């Protein structure tokens, strides 16, 4: 582009060869005074090329790098925050499952203990009941034997008493066999 300006300038330069760029006042409107154009174009080309070089080589890469670095830092921080959040969520989940299994195990242990205790108390009660039942049976047996003994004693006493009564009444002792038979018959009737 600089070349094209240069050519244009060259063309105009011939037309206004003797013109000067200073404001020699009064001749025309300054923005339209052609004799100042070459100087302005040269200045503009120098200034703008310098500006373009500074901007494209140094200024924009520098500012762009700062902005990129910031964007990267923000993205990195966001990713890090997301990672930490995921981590804490995973930890929370692990804690919850741990808690659930612990609770389940506690319940299992409780149930087991309860069952065991119930079983042992059942067994104890059974043993106690058995022993009580045995004692009861023994007692009943002893009562029965005592009663049987007592009954057999009653028979002997009754026979003795009968033979004594008969002796008192008749003056003569009855035959033991007869008395015993009579007592048995009597006991059978009453029993």
């Amino acid at each position: 582009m600089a070349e094209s300006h240069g050519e244009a300038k060259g063309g105009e330069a011939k037309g206004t060869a003797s013109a000067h760029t200073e404001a020699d006042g009064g001749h025309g409107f300054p923005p339209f005074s052609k004799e100042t154009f070459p100087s302005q174009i040269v200045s503009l080309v120098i200034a703008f090329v310098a500006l373009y070089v500074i901007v494209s080589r140094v200024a924009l890469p520098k500012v762009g790098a700062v902005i990129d670095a910031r964007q990267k830092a923000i993205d990195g921080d966001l990713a890090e925050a997301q990672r930490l959040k995921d981590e804490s969520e995973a930890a929370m989940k692990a804690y919850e499952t741990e808690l659930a299994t612990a609770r389940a195990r506690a319940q299992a242990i409780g149930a087991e203990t309860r069952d065991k205790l119930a079983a042992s108390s059942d067994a104890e009660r059974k043993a106690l009941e058995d022993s009580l039942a045995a004692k009861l049976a023994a007692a009943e047996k002893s009562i029965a034997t005592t009663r049987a003994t007592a009954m057999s004693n009653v028979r002997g006493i009754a026979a003795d008493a009968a033979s004594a009564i008969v002796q008192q009444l008749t003056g003569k002792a009855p035959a033991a066999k007869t008395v015993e038979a009579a007592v048995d018959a009597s006991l059978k009737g009453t029993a």
Partner: protein
Amino acid sequence: MIDPIHQFHLNKIFTIGHIGNQEIAFTNSSAYMLLAVVLIAVMMMAAGRALVPGRFQSMVELSYEFVANTIRTSAGSHGMTFFPLVFSLFMFIFVSNIVGIIPYTFTVSSHIIVTFALALLVFLTVIIYGFYKNGLKFFKLFVPSGIPAVILPLVVVIEIISFFSRPISHSVRLFANMLAGHVTLKVFASFVTMLGALGFVGKVGALLPLGLTVALTGLELMVAFLQAYVFTILTCIYLNDAIHPGH
């Protein structure tokens, strides 16, 4: 009456050399061009590299992002090839315009030759890059699709005329805005001094143009930015034609 045109005069500071018989002078305009370049360079260099930017760094990064977004929205991501050019154009025009608002300064962009040279730079960039990138397909720019064959020749002629009038409208818009703004400012400001010289009543009367001058300065600040932005966005739109001809 203070001459409102005086501020546009070029004053030779020294002679750089000669091209043919034409004297090439270093003028006040040259000084302000270099001042703009130095201001931009210093601003861009002095900006820190902090992760959390301060005010100054924010301003620099804002200008970077602003121009980058302007290119991306109007010329697509491929337009970022021209980021240094568009950024240089925007910053150069914007800083020159802003500096020009300060009293007693010279406004580089108030000279048609400067704005025309910049517009021509864009125009030639569009043509050269358009042919380099698209070859003869670049001519599709002048043949809009979906136009009935009957009126197509007319449309093509209109497209060609509008294409070649681009550098003129592109440059005159910026030049005329800056010129008119500065003339208006100068005229109103000169009313203040003229009325102020007429005694007490004149001093009271001078308050009105003074207020207007202040208001116009605010308006000119906006125009300074707006015209730089308009020049930049038109540059992006023209570059978009070079990148994607055939609309």
